[in-house]
């Protein structure tokens, strides 16, 4: 009975896969079977989940590993589909460590989606942050190593804020269950939790980690990362904080902020990263508005967004993999050499812009319409402006300067079959959802009374998109990409930290040398006397009792040293095995 509870949790399968993968290093075929098989098992499994499972009482806390309702189901559905697509896309990658990191990351994300209490949430939350850092590091460039460390530090800080909120909340209400928080009863603790969630949703001013880290991640790593971190944060916000005014306003600001930066950046993957900020803004805003239609819109937009954003990242990743660069100023005229990647990326581009018949059209408009129905005209206009900017930068600018424009003469050919297959599946889903929105709508938590294909909505969209296109061609010379980067708020911890260090180092240095002097004149003498006393005691009394155990420690240390192979994948494997064992123990006890 207990073992079936463990096995029905999709995270278990990803953790098992992560343990299994390093053992299959030499057996390519089996490894690939596991890589594709486990996400497919997880996808099948989520249709059979009971409403509630895996309740564990541990140290007086009630942990809930499985709480399943309509909101959970729709996110699980898209997360597992995304895992399948991402694994197909990364099938050619030889480094097992990257696959392990991706599996742990997806497992963490599914764990967060399923958990019913804050403690379990926190554990899986940190697993995600930890595992995704490796997806950045596996790019193995100097810049990615640095970016990975910054990513990890920012997320650790966010995690601590979240943990502080959880502790304070426990102190206030003596209950850790993760449920909706009423807008009028929210305390300081709840706001801390919300800030922890908002950091992962990349809400300004705590968004800069995203455009900092994602463009430096490995090609397949970025595809996973763009789907899971921010959308898991959208899920927890939708679960805990619908109707909070701060989210509505910050979300609307996010949408415009993201597209603004996307319009001026040069690196294709950085443009796409800023677009995550913008698109997640729609979802955050929808959650903030809080009506049934707005929350429905936010969730359906998360669903559609995961697929088309992954498609865009896959397209940009394919270009990076094949040409070695993703900078627009070094690309151009690639349509002759990578026509398939071009078609897929353009499909992603028109989906994110919300062309009729694509997934963006049926999801984004729902949030905007919900803003209109709640008479939030300011939010409505900001989101519509962001839609204009989206089409400008991802719909036209990105494809234009990569595939058309001036031919750069960069050598390239179409990507491997598995990359194209993954992009094909994602592109198909973009159209499928756009043409049969009921498929998506019937998964949503609230009944849907919204019809995207009205003549007015079509007229509005076509005018917006058409005249944005006109605007682009008027200004195309101004938009010519340059090999530059733009400052963002990460300046404060990248440059500001150095200024702080320079100031701080002087007092620290002088006080340090003063303490040294004091120590040399007084402390040293004291220590010597103390040492003499202790050594006498040691010699006379303890030596022979301790000697035996000391020898034991030395031996144990040697054995441990032989375990430290210095290979990062072994460490992850080990850490994972340990986590897994603990998980099983907790479930069984």
């Amino acid at each position, binding site marked *: 009975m207990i073992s079936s509870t463990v096995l029905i949790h999709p995270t278990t399968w990803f953790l098992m896969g992560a343990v299994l993968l390093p053992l299959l290093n030499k057996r390519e075929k089996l490894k690939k079977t596991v890589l594709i098989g486990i996400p497919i098992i997880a996808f099948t499994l989520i249709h059979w989940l009971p409403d509630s499972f895996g309740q564990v009482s541990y140290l007086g806390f009630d942990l809930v590993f499985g709480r399943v309702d309509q909101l959970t189901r729709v996110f699980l559905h898209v997360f597992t589909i995304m895992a399948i697509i991402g694994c197909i896309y990364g099938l050619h990658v030889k480094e097992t460590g990257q696959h392990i990191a991706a599996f742990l990351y997806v497992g963490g994300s599914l764990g967060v989606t399923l958990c019913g209490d804050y403690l379990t949430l926190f554990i899986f939350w940190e697993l995600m942050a930890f595992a995704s850092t490796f997806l950045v590091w596996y790019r193995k460039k100097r810049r990615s190593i640095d970016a990975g460390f910054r990513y990890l530090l920012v997320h650790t800080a966010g995690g601590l804020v979240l943990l502080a909120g959880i502790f304070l909340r426990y102190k206030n209400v003596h209950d850790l269950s993760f449920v909706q928080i009423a807008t009028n009863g929210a305390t300081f603790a709840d706001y801390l939790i919300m800030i922890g969630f908002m950091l992962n949703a990349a809400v300004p001013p705590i968004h800069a980690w995203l455009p900092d880290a994602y463009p430096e991640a490995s090609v397949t790593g970025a595809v996973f990362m763009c789907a899971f971190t921010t959308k898991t944060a959208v899920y927890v916000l939708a679960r805990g904080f619908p109707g909070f005014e701060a989210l509505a306003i910050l979300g609307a600001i996010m949408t415009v902020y993201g*597209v*603004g*930066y996307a*319009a*001026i950046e040069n690196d294709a993957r950085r443009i796409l990263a800023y677009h995550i900020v913008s698109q997640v803004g729609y979802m955050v805003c929808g959650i903030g508005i809080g009506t049934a239609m707005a929350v429905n819109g936010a969730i359906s937009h998360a669903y559609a967004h995961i697929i088309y954003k992954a498609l865009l990242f896959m397209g940009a990743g394919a270009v990076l993999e094949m040409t070695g660069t993703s900078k627009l100023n070094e690309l151009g005229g690639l*349509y*002759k050499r990578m*026509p398939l990647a071009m*078609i897929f990326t353009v499909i992603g581009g028109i989906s994110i812009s919300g062309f009729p018949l694509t997934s963006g059209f049926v999801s984004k408009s729902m949030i905007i*319409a919900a803003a*209109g*129905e709640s*008479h939030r*005209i300011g939010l*409505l206009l900001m989101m*519509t*402006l962001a839609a*204009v*900017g989206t089409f*400008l930068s991802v719909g036209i600018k990105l494809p234009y300067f990569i595939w*058309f424009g001036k031919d750069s003469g960069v050598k390239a050919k179409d990507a491997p079959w598995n990359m194209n297959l993954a992009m094909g599946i994602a592109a198909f889903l973009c159209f499928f959802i756009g043409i049969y929105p009921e498929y998506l709508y019937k998964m949503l938590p609230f009944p849907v009374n919204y019809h995207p294909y*009205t*003549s*007015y909505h*079509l*007229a*509005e969209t*076509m*005018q*917006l*998109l*058409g*005249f*944005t*296109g*006109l*605007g*682009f061609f*008027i*200004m195309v010379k*101004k*938009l010519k990409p*340059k*090999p*530059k*980067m*733009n*400052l*963002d708020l990460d300046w404060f911890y*990248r*440059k500001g930290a150095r200024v702080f260090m320079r100031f701080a180092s002087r007092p620290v240095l002088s006080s340090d040398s003063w303490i040294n002097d004091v120590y040399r004149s007084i402390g040293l003498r004291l220590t010597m006397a103390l040492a003499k006393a202790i050594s006498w005691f040691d010699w006379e009394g303890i030596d022979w009792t301790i000697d035996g155990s000391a020898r034991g420690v030395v031996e144990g240390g040697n054995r441990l040293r032989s375990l430290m192979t210095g290979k990062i994948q072994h460490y992850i494997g080990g850490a994972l095995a340990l986590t897994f064992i603990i998980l099983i123990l907790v479930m069984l006890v």
Partner: protein
Amino acid sequence: MLLRILNYLNEHSLMLKRIFFVFLALFVVFDFSAARHAPHFFGDSIIGFWSLFGLIGCLGLIIVFKGLSHVWLEKKEDYYDK
């Protein structure tokens, strides 16, 4: 096959431009016939409002953010490495 179509389109950019303008005109004409149920605010009842919004919004975004980038935000790529 695919390449040939793309090459053909690339060589006939003037034709594409004309088609594009015809479509723009059609979108505005279509707006006359669109049924307006429950307009959310005054913009929803003006014909061609979203055309103007799209064009001005697009130009505005480019001017504001390119301007910001030009005078303040833009730095060399190795700015943080130094």
